[in-house]
């Protein structure tokens, strides 16, 4: 319904990309909990194409770039808001700009591939729309394909550690339990500051999988009991490392130290051409704690008034994602099949070269 509304509104608007509220459109799509960020981004672009009135191909392409920038700016803002408790959030934000970036890159590449064949703008637009529908269909089936691939790694009596809430990880676990009738136990980390892990616990319990929540700080303690670790990913970078909710990196380090396999589960449209050199080399807002720029109240004060705003303050000054280098990941389970981390760059090169 919201989409239709947008269509009507935008149809009457002029070609000015500023009047097409890309950010609002993006947020509308993100309301759908089942939609992943790159797909939402892709959809915003298709909405924009539908109502774009740019007179020439060049101008059309320019406005597309602007829409991309708007979406990225919106996601930057989101990444900050995501850390607040659910009750105080204004909308359903997303934690990572990286997934948005993957979507924007993918769409740009998609457009670039197709512009060469058409000189007429209307033809180009019609072609883009027709093709993007097919692509979106394919993208929606990605999670099901991962479930089939990923559940092979779950064996009977396995104990699995899962970090926070990830839709792909959940689909793998549910497929293994409900379709393949495997019996296994799951530990889920709480996933501070949003405590999304608790959502995962209640969902898993609802589907009859024995599971328990553990504190993020108890990962080292519990890992001896664990056979394998599953983590989702916001983005998979060029060297095969992943960017995921804060805490993934330390879990990977502990898992490596204890010799437990750690599998990153991600859809291939989350692969992004980015080569982070360290934790701070990510396209997101640098958290205040890195620069010590946030002058908070003195610590004695903080102890006295450990109220809600205080903990919000803490969440806001901390990062929402971290980067896990490829040497700590055992394998990547994707809709393209099982990949070793070094296989990722191969796929990216195939797509972007």
């Amino acid at each position, binding site marked *: 319904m919201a989409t239709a509304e947008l269509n009507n509104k935008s149809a009457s608007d002029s070609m000015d990309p500023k009047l097409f509220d890309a950010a609002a459109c993006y947020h509308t799509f993100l309301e759908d909990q089942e939609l992943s960020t790159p797909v939402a981004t892709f959809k915003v672009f298709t909405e924009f194409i539908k109502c774009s009135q740019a007179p020439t191909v060049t101008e059309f392409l320019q406005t597309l770039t602007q829409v991309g920038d708007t979406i990225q700016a919106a996601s930057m803002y989101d990444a900050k808001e995501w850390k607040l408790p659910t009750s105080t959030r204004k909308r359903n934000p997303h934690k990572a700009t990286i997934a948005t970036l993957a979507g924007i890159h993918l769409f740009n590449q998609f457009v670039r591939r197709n512009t060469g064949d058409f000189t007429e703008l209307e033809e180009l637009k019609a072609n883009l729309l027709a093709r993007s529908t097919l692509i979106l269909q394919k993208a929606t089936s990605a999670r099901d394909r991962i479930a089939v691939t990923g559940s092979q*790694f779950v064996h009977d009596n396995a104990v699995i550690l899962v970090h926070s809430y990830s839709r792909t990880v959940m689909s793998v676990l549910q497929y293994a339990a409900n379709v393949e009738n495997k019996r296994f136990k799951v530990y889920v980390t709480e996933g501070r500051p949003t405590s999304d892990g608790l959502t995962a616990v209640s969902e898993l319990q609802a589907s009859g999988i024995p599971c328990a929540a553990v504190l993020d700080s108890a990962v080292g303690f519990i890992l001896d009991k664990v056979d394998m670790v599953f983590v989702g990913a916001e983005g998979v970078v060029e060297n095969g490392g992943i960017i995921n909710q804060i805490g993934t990196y330390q879990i990977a380090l502990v898992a490596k130290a204890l010799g437990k396999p750690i599998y990153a589960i991600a859809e291939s449209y989350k692969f992004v051409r980015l080569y982070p050199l360290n934790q701070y080399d990510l396209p997101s807002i640098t958290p205040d704690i890195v620069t010590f720029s946030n002058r908070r109240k003195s610590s004695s004060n903080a102890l006295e008034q450990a109220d809600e705003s205080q903990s919000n303050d803490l969440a806001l000054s901390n990062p929402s994602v971290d980067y896990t280098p490829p040497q700590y990941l055992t394998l990547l389970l994707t809709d393209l099949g099982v990949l070793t981390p070094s296989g990722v760059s191969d796929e990216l090169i195939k797509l972007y070269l």
Partner: protein
Amino acid sequence: MVLSKALESQVEDFISRLKRRQIVGSYEVAKETAIILRQVVSTTRWSDASVLVHVITDLGRRLVAAQPKELAVGNIVRRVLKIIREVVRGELETDDIMNSGTSEDSDGFSQDSEDDADSDREFKSILAQDTEDTDHTPRPEIPQRPKLQTESSMFNLLVDKNSEDIDYSAKSYNMKPLIIQEINEEIIADLETVYKGIADQALEHIHANEVIMTIGYSRTVKDFLTKAAAKRSFQVIVAETSPTLQGQAMAASLAEVGIETTVITDSAIHAVMSRVNKVVLGAHAVLANGGLVAVTGSQMVAAAAKHHTTPVLVCTALYKLSPLFPYDVDLFNVCVTPEHVLSFNEGTLIDKVNVLNPYYDFVAPELVNLFVHNLGSAPPSYVYRLINDNYDLEDTTL
């Protein structure tokens, strides 16, 4: 759909021998599988390739189920399926070459290949180095590089076609001899040349006066070392590989060709490792992540080598490469009779203890430095590429 009576009984015979482990070892198994599949292609009635793919997949599933530990069976089935798909694609390409204007190059391998031969030929050169010159395939020349669609490619995210678009049901009458010829040349003839292909690289890896350690009996490793011994003098230490004592047999055959050979007990592996320059292992199967299933004791050798930072070389033919992953470390292992560990004559003791006699070891990819295969060499992190080149992703699960 159905196999002929004679063929069916041959298949049954093969299956029961697989089950009883009367036929063991990747080479024998691979060869017999290839021959049976060739017969299926030639004697089964099929009017279009989709039927053939179906028949082969069905039979492949039966053979794999008979002995899941012999991964070579599944590998050969997948290779045959890939050949059929290649042939079908090649045929279709020539049929509608006139009206298909686009040629999408989605195959990663063909991109980094310099020569402008069409990719069927490339494929051939990957699999059979020696048959290249003798290749008189009656295939019409394809003026344009055929479209190779791999669902395994991220590229396909942006392509609105599926690999299912390939019409396997297209009728084609000269496909049968072509497929049979390809199986003959690329698989069966290839099996004959693997040992030579690997042994030819021996001089690159083994230098004068080196001390080499190996374990178990592997014809690949034996040929590899023998070839090197023709030019260089070096010393080989063989672990005896209890309880099968394959290592002793290996040592005997190495000594026969004049290599200075020492046999040690398995328990001395770690102690001797400090003197070793290089470890050469054979493999039963290589899994998609670069880990290998090898004779029991290999893990111990590899771990000791890691401890001493001694390079570990694995000699393996390409048909041992499996697209499966070690979902569970024990999945591809098998425990055989404990007779050789603790004889049944020791009746009083045998009641009181559990005796395990695993036949294979799983060696993690971190412990391996290099795979020497029949067409070159690759580090474990590159194995996935070799697998993508050799098999079709559709066939990973038979």
